[in-house]
């Protein structure tokens, strides 16, 4: 039996075809997040330079986070012609369980927003990129070395509520439909449980 040959990176199929429309949605809480407006401006410029059609909404409530995502998905599904890539930037205060805080202080789960775009028919087999700029807890990483030892000892005795890696893996295993996730890239601005600077 001839062994199956691995795909070479040089083959066209090894790379996403991005010849269709690229769409980006930026949802950013700026209020009480000093300096965030500079991040928003830089991201908008970058997305436009990369050929994305950009929709920007600042200071959304938790409800608006959800509604904007639904509208974005519906818009892509109704789009005439192929959609090749979607980028979603979420910028807000966040919590240890994946919460994002709207400008009204209410919470929305970032995982739910990811799932909303994962259900987009126009993006089947297309890359979906998420940039999450939010805290993922209150821990402040001291780095490595002797000064970090007390921090890591506290980390090992972390109270319930801060999920361990094993907890997270279990959630993913148990989540209905989790095996259907593909073509998703999430870039977090902090390690799990930690503050985003």
């Amino acid at each position, binding site marked *: 039996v001839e062994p199956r040959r691995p795909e070479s990176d040089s083959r066209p199929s090894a790379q996403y075809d991005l010849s269709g429309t690229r769409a980006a949605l930026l949802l950013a809480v700026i209020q009480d997040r*000093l*300096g965030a407006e500079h991040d928003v401006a830089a991201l908008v410029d970058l997305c436009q330079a990369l050929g994305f059609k950009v929709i920007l909404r600042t200071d959304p409530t938790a409800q608006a986070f959800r509604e904007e995502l639904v509208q974005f998905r519906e818009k892509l599904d109704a789009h005439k012609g192929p959609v090749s*890539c979607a980028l979603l930037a979420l910028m807000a205060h966040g919590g240890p369980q994946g919460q994002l805080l709207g400008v009204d202080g209410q919470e929305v789960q970032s995982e739910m927003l990811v799932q909303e775009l994962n259900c987009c028919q126009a993006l089947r087999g297309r890359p979906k990129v998420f940039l999450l700029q939010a805290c993922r807890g209150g821990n402040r990483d001291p780095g490595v070395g002797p000064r970090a030892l007390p921090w890591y000892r506290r980390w090992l005795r972390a109270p319930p509520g801060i999920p361990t890696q094993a907890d997270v893996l279990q959630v993913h295993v148990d989540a209905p439909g989790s095996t259907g996730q593909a073509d998703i890239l999430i870039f977090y601005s902090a390690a799990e449980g930690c503050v*985003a600077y």
Partner: protein
Amino acid sequence: RDEEKGSDFVQTLVEVMRANPGGDFIELLTEVNRRVCELDVLGPDSVERRKACLEIRSSLRRRLCLQ
């Protein structure tokens, strides 16, 4: 966040992407992570240096080059 410049996360991402617009996206994000991890952060309420490590979670099945 730096009040006048924005966050290391976004500003480094933009800097790396603008310098390598045709590069493999995962590789570029890895470079962003390397640069951000090398920075020392000193918050207004802290006298100790802190680190920020980013996280990439991917189920991409192909190379992603955004140019």
